[in-house]
């Protein structure tokens, strides 16, 4: 039985929701807009909201100074690699906790989360020394490993909650039909959990993409992702609002677009088992 919604109420809701949505989005809108202005227009008083001569000059300047595609590619590889690796390790772990729980399952989950509490700056030296020792500095492999480990607890937890939603009866039915463990995971469990796995992948990819401490401190020229790209545009000499905006837009655009396309998936899937 659907609730009857009066048109008046819908109009009010629409106005409120749009106002808030636009307010929240404004900083991003303003950044994208400013990236198409000249430096002088960027600090114009009063601010220019739409009507000005749009220019691509800032993008050209930024591209000339640093090869965007290389940073972008590193970001894709590092965020993607750490996500894939994390998922591969997390699925079996989450499966075993969800379907063969023991008394310690809850403790293990909370302990995994607690590994995220060590502040990164506190272990900068230990990790750097390890990286030097194993020649991992400025390699994508090293970063993939670190980001995978950082986000693994979140992945395991998310998958665990999705798996828990799956009725055990189905698994038992499959077992009756003679399915082994491998078949059970591959053909029964995974298809049912695909929406959950997809949103886990998405969230993890976003987190890895935006990680800015290790990606900056453990890279130089070869493996530097977009977080390092942006680090050369904060406060150079003179006016820089427009160039900063262009660089910022370039850094966030790929993930923003990805996020927008998969928005439904994220909204549906991001529950951490909160829905009960």
């Amino acid at each position, binding site marked *: 039985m659907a609730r009857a919604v009066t048109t008046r109420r*819908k109009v009010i809701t629409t106005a409120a929701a749009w106002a808030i949505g636009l307010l929240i989005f404004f900083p991003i809108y303003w950044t994208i807009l400013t990236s198409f202005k000249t430096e002088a227009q960027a600090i114009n008083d*009063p601010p220019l909201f739409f009507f000005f001569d749009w220019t691509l000059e800032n993008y050209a300047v930024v591209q000339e100074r640093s090869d965007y595609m290389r940073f972008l590619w590193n970001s894709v590889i590092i965020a993607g690699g750490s996500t894939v690796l994390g998922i591969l390790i997390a699925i079996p772990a989450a499966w075993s906790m969800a379907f*063969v729980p023991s008394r310690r399952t809850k403790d293990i989950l909370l302990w995994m989360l607690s590994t995220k509490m*060590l502040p990164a700056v506190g272990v900068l030296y230990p990790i750097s020394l390890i990286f030097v020792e194993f020649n991992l500095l400025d390699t994508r492999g090293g970063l993939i490993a670190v980001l995978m480990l950082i986000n693994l607890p979140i992945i395991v937890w998310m998958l665990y909650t999705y798996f828990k939603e799956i009725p055990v009866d189905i698994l038992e039915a499959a077992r009756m039909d003679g399915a082994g463990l491998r078949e059970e995971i591959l053909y029964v469990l995974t298809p049912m959990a695909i929406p959950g796995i997809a949103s886990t992948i998405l969230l993890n990819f976003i987190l890895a993409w935006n990680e800015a401490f290790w990606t900056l401190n453990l890279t130089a020229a070869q493996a530097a992702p977009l977080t390092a790209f942006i680090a050369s545009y904060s406060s150079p000499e003179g006016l820089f609002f427009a160039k900063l905006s262009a660089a910022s837009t370039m850094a966030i655009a790929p993930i923003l677009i990805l996020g927008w396309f998969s928005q439904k998936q994220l909204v549906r899937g991001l529950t951490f088992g909160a829905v009960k």
Partner: protein
Amino acid sequence: MATRHSRSAARLMLAPAVILLLGWMLVPLTMTLYFSFKRYLPMRGDSLERGLDWVGFENYARFLSSSSFWPSVQATLVIVGGVLVITVVLGVLLAMLLDQPFWGQGIVRILVIAPFFVMPTVSALVWKNMLMDPINGILAHLWRFFGAEPVSWLSDASVQSIILIVSWQWLPFATLILLTAIQSLDSEQLEAAEMDGANPLARFGFIVLPHLSRAITIVILIQTIFLLSIFAEIFVTTGGSFGTRTLTYLIFQRVIDSQNIGLGSAGGVYAIILANIVAIFLMRIVGKNLDR
């Protein structure tokens, strides 16, 4: 139902994740603990190869007795607490609003979750320069438009500014989780309550909020873990001045600016202790929600 066979298989499957995380936790933690009892000033020529001097608990005592320590704990708690309150309260309201039928739902949702995709460095840079700059920032223009004196946000309202920036980044996350929880709310239950004459406030208090408690718990738990270690937002905007030096930032200053690894490591150990106190505190208050 779980056979012995599947039990051992389960352990085997859990093993890689546990072993990796155990290594990821223990190796740096052991090194941090080791350094924290040593004099380790790389700028003075100390290095692992040459051996480090044992100094006992000196680093711990020094870190604790520094005049910056307690203010930094306070700043950490204020910022984390402030962001939690704002994101949870606004997140609940926003989720309820977005759950209503209205035109352009898809687009508005996209607008609302967009900040979550922005990397912290970029969001800090954008807020600091484009919005909060007291001369050319958009807020300064707005203030001047209404005839008010522009505010120097990052010096006069520094802690509030940081809370605002971080809340902006995390509000989408809270909203998303709360929205999925609200969507699972049985609308018939609400209607029944409405027919019984319960006013909106009562409906919210007795039906919606209890239903959301588990989701709120999770928002608080996950956000706390991330918020305790926020760094880029402070590094870019205030650099730790004007009362925004959190414990994480204080450790950064000890390790990077002062190049005192021993002292910074002792600070790292304190940070772990603080994080665990907060975690235990959280579990006590809200943890029972997780067990349902």
